[in-house]
Structures are given as structure tokens and as C-alpha cells.
């Protein structure tokens, strides 16, 4: 991040909020630089494979995968909210625009006139609490961490020939 001049020196802002804003802006610019130069880098594996097999994945590969990886929850919530509200579809409202706004409003029943539930709760409260406890117990398990570390070590040792082939010729 300190490739930007402002980060080479100590922060000269007067509040933490200004520091945070400056650093976030710097992070966004760094991501833009990485994205613009990503297709020019070739790893040893891709260089050995003889080309740019998806190295420009800042847009198509990993970024696309991450978007469907990360936005799944939000997308589901919004879709559920629109469905539960029972309101008219935006496309449909635009399609019968010949009838005017008054005609469209007349077709709306009491249920359809309700405010849309933009962020409905996906589960009852009790289920959320149980899920929180489960997630807490699962993520803070040192035994699982040790087991995962041992298995990962064994897995890497098993595949050491393939992983080291590019580095030892």
C-alpha cells in the first residue's frame, strides 16, 4: 500500500476518520492497479503451461468466482424479500405503462400495497441463536485446527512431487 506517496510517510490527518478514509481510497486504487496489471504476470506454472491460461482472471476468473461466492447470501435475501412482499414486478409495471399510473395503482391490492420487506429475517430468532452457537463452536475449535494442519501437511507431502516439479526442474 505504500507504493502511494502518502503512505510512505506518517499520516498527517487530524482524525482517525480521515486516516481511515485515506487508507480505504488507497486500497481501492491499489486494487485498480492490481487489476490492470494482472494479465501481465505469469506464474511459473502458467509460464510452463505456455500461455495466459486465465491469468487475466481479475475480471473473469477469480473475481467472478468470488462474486458468486460472496454475494449468495445477499442475493437470496433480496430475492426472498421481493417474493414475500408480493408486489408488482418492476418490468411488469413498466410494460403496462399505457394505462397510466392511476390504472396501475388501481390494480394493487392491500397486500401488494404493503411496503416491501427489503431485508427479511431468513430464520426465526431461536434458529439464529442456535446457528450462532454452532458457528461459534465450530470456528473456535483448536482441535479442528490441529487436525486440519496435520492433514494439510500430509496432503502437501503426498503431492510434493507435483508441487515442486516446477521449482526443481
Amino acid at each position, binding site marked *: *500500500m*505504500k*507504493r502511494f506517496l502518502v*503512505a*510512505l*510517510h*506518517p*499520516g*498527517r*490527518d*487530524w482524525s*482517525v*476518520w480521515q*486516516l*481511515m478514509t485515506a*487508507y*480505504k481510497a488507497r*486500497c481501492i486504487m*491499489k*486494487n485498480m492497479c*492490481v*487489476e490492470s496489471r*494482472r494479465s501481465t*504476470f505469469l506464474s511459473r*506454472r502458467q509460464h510452463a503451461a505456455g500461455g495466459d491460461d486465465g491469468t487475466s*482472471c*481479475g475480471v473473469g476468473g*477469480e473475481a467472478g*468466482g*468470488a462474486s458468486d*461466492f*460472496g454475494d*449468495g*447470501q445477499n442475493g437470496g435475501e433480496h430475492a426472498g424479500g421481493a417474493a414475500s412482499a408480493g408486489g408488482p414486478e418492476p418490468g411488469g409495471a413498466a410494460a403496462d405503462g399505457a394505462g397510466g399510473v392511476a390504472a396501475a395503482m388501481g390494480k394493487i391490492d392491500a397486500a401488494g400495497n404493503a411496503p416491501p420487506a427489503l431485508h427479511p429475517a431468513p430464520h426465526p430468532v431461536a434458529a439464529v441463536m442456535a*446457528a*450462532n452457537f*454452532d*458457528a*461459534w463452536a*465450530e*470456528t*473456535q*475449535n*483448536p482441535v*479442528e*485446527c*490441529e487436525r*486440519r*494442519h496435520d*492433514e*494439510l*501437511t*500430509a*496432503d*502437501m507431502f*503426498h*503431492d510434493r512431487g507435483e*508441487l515442486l516439479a516446477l521449482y526443481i526442474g
Partner: protein
Amino acid sequence: MERNKERGMPGCIGSLDCCHWEWHKCPTGMAGAYQSRRDKRGIVVKAVCNKDLWVWHLFVGAPGSLNDINVMHQSPLYLNFTGGRWPPRKKTYTINGRTRSLPSYLVDGIYPRFSFFDLSTPQAVHRGAEELQSPPFFFRRPSERTSRDSLAS
């Protein structure tokens, strides 16, 4: 995750580390809380990046007197992880024949042994921090160009 799997780290979704940024204009009244290392005042920056050093998560503004673990405990990433809101368990991966759905972050040895932390190879973690803390090579050396146009290009 697919690219990390090719590199021998299945289930890894990024590297997590903290660094300090010195705060030159820190008010005197806040100097105690923001007292950082080497008698400097500063804030802590926690970031998650991948192999290309694309920053996926950034948490800025924690006082410099906190260490990495304290910063992690108050970051939204940790709260979402322990609250079950992140990550989605859509993709599974296999390590040594065992299939899992909880991805992990690559961290160094100071972090606690949570099941979503991978304390395997700390040097790979510091690569991101080193990149963030060092300017490009041609900025670190005097310019050898002879004209302003070549410098600008």
C-alpha cells in the same frame, strides 16, 4: 480457492495480516491509546489479500496499542465468521481425503488456533505485508532516465 488448491493449499481463501501505519498528527490526548511500536503513534491496518495481492478485506483504524489478536477480535470479519454469517458453505474441498466446507485464512503463528486459521506457512503471509510496505523498485532508486518525457512514460 481453485488457484490455491493448485498451489497445494486447498480451502485457503486468502492471507490475513496486520501492519502499523504511523500517525504523525496524533492529538496528545489520544497518544496513550495510539502508542504504537518504536515510540510512535499509529493505527493498525488489518487486510486480507490473495496471491495477486488483491485486497479482499480491509479493517483500518484500530489503535496502535493493540496487537494483532485484539484487532482481529474487533474486526467485522471475525464477528461474521464466529456468527455464522461468513463464509457461505457452498463450496467444499478435500484435504487428505476428508471433505470440509469451512474455508480458512493463511496467518502467521501469533494468531490463536481457530479452525478457520491456517498457521502453516507464515512466510507467504508476510509477502502481502511486505508488498504493502515497500514502494516499487524503480521508486526506490534514483532515476536513470535522461529526459522528462521518458520519466513521464
